[in-house]
């Protein structure tokens, strides 16, 4: 746990230092009359200068910043004048839902396809799968998202155009769940395509290495079915690294949501970050940075712990 806490501390401190050390000082520019990015709203400007406290010595600013973090005080948005913590708390569940679903799909598809490809290695279906997964991985997620939206939502009309649910309607709990799921499918699949290649290659490699093992020969001699040999014997060995990798991919997926949420107008943290960049809303930008960082680190830590729990050899 210690290295993760250390990394978190470094990131938190960078979040404090970078806006203050950057040449040009974008935050200072917002407070200087006459600069192009001057914030005209006086209440927002006061909140901004109070949050950054640029007139005080650096050490005092740092202590105020850490104290604010401890109280979940992330400052005020300069565009909407809402507390940043509230904004993020509203958006976070959607991002978690989207990233979780995306990685879930990627893991299931990656596992099944990987087991198949490893089992039939060098077969044409194996080659096709490898090419497809590696190719998909090279398409930037915002390109894939835009194309998926155009094809499935606009031209085929299978999925809604964007958002996380139909606005301005009251639905029963069941209908609401169906509505949310319908809005979720397409962005989650795009996210899955971005991370599935890792899961696929991992399972494939694990299955390939197990194929010649003696216990596989024994299993075959015992007359086990191919299905049993494939999934219960060979692919089973891939589960351990797969679990560890799934948590890491969750962190990667959270960063990819920045692009996917923009295209699908999905109301998550990524979309918030995109709007904050467009509006030069630095407190919101930094808040999103912190939340995404914490999510990435937390998933990596979870992967470490899961690994130790599942694999006795990794215990100290």
């Amino acid at each position, binding site marked *: 746990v210690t290295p993760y806490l*250390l990394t978190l501390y470094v990131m938190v401190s960078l979040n404090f230092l970078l806006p203050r050390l950057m040449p040009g000082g974008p935050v200072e520019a917002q407070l200087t009359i006459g600069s192009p990015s001057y914030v005209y709203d006086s209440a927002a400007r006061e909140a901004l200068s109070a949050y950054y406290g640029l007139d005080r010595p650096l050490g005092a600013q740092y202590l105020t910043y850490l104290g604010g973090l401890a109280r979940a005080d992330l400052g005020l948005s300069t565009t909407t004048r809402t507390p940043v913590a509230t904004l993020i708390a509203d958006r976070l569940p959607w991002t978690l839902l989207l990233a979780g679903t995306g990685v879930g799909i990627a893991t299931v598809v990656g596992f099944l396809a990987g087991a198949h490809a490893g089992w039939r290695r060098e077969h044409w279906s194996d080659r096709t799968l*490898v090419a497809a997964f590696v190719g998909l991985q*090279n398409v*930037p997620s915002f390109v894939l998202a*835009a194309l998926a939206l155009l094809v499935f939502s606009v031209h085929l009309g299978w999925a809604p155009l964007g958002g996380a649910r139909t606005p301005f309607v009251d639905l029963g709990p069941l209908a609401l769940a169906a509505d949310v799921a319908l809005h979720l499918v397409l962005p989650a699949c795009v996210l899955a395509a971005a991370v599935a290649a890792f899961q696929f290659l991992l399972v494939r490699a694990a299955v390939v290495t*197990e194929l010649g093992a003696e216990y596989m020969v024994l299993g075959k001699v015992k007359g086990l079915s191919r299905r049993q040999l494939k999934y219960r014997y060979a692919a089973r060995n891939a589960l351990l690294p797969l679990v560890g990798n799934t948590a890491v991919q969750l962190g990667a997926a959270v960063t990819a949501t920045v692009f996917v949420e923009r295209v699908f107008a999905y109301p998550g943290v990524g979309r918030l970050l995109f709007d904050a960049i467009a509006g030069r809303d630095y407190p919101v*930008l930094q808040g999103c*940075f912190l939340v995404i960082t914490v999510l990435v680190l937390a998933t990596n830590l979870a992967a470490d712990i899961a690994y130790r729990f599942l694999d006795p050899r990794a215990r100290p």
Partner: protein
Amino acid sequence: VSLTQPTATSVSSTPGRRAPLLVAGLFIIGALVVVAALGPVLAPYDPRALVGDAVEPPSARHLLGTNDIGQDILSGLVAGARSSLAVAVPAASLALGVGTVVGVGAALRGGRAGKATMRAVDGFLALPGFPLVVLLAALAGPSRAAVVVVVALAGWPPMARVLYGQALRLRERGFVRASRGFGARPGYVMRRHLLPALGPVAAAGFVQWAATAVVLESGLAFLGLADPTWVSWGSILHRALEYQGLYFSSLWVWWVLPAGLAITVTALGFTFIGVGLEPSFNPQWRRSL
């Protein structure tokens, strides 16, 4: 499927099989370089000039139509090749340079100083890269130099790690030990013996990071973090997706699709070269693919 076949080592991905990938990758990147070099000659118009009506469909005058303010899209794509390379090549070179100095330096130095350096590199590797890149780019303001530095900053720690491991192995080889025994200084050993031997590893690292840099650059431009006066594939997509009517016409066929394909094919080109280079020095690859 025969189960008795010996496995890992006999997976038939011999180096020869990867040569086509290398050729394809070199062909793609070569074509890109030509387009980038001849850009102003090839492009029918200045990509920033307003040369037509808004959102014209493709015609003989504008092969890929015009965008929402009447700029020629094909000219924008040609200019994009140049901006893509202008970020990817310097960023990957910078990352490789810093990674080489740190990684090989630490390996040559050895001892406590070398170990401490690599611990620091591990610390950098643990930082979540993408959020940091976005924050830095947002704070540095929209300039191309900032994008290059930020992308390089994220790329040097993994390069330092790989080169450190390789250099450490080389250090114990006879010819390096002999050279040091004769009193050669670290700088000389690095130039004369280590750098040539590290060449393939460095080249693979370079093209891999160039592929990442192409995607990162377009991603930053897509987020609106690139120089707004600079036409890039990411900024074409940014502009297209901001246009309200995009989804209700066939505009996307000549506005979104070509730019998206350009980014993908360029990234694939660099990746192909990387994979094609890999097995010539890393037999591990035969096992994993």
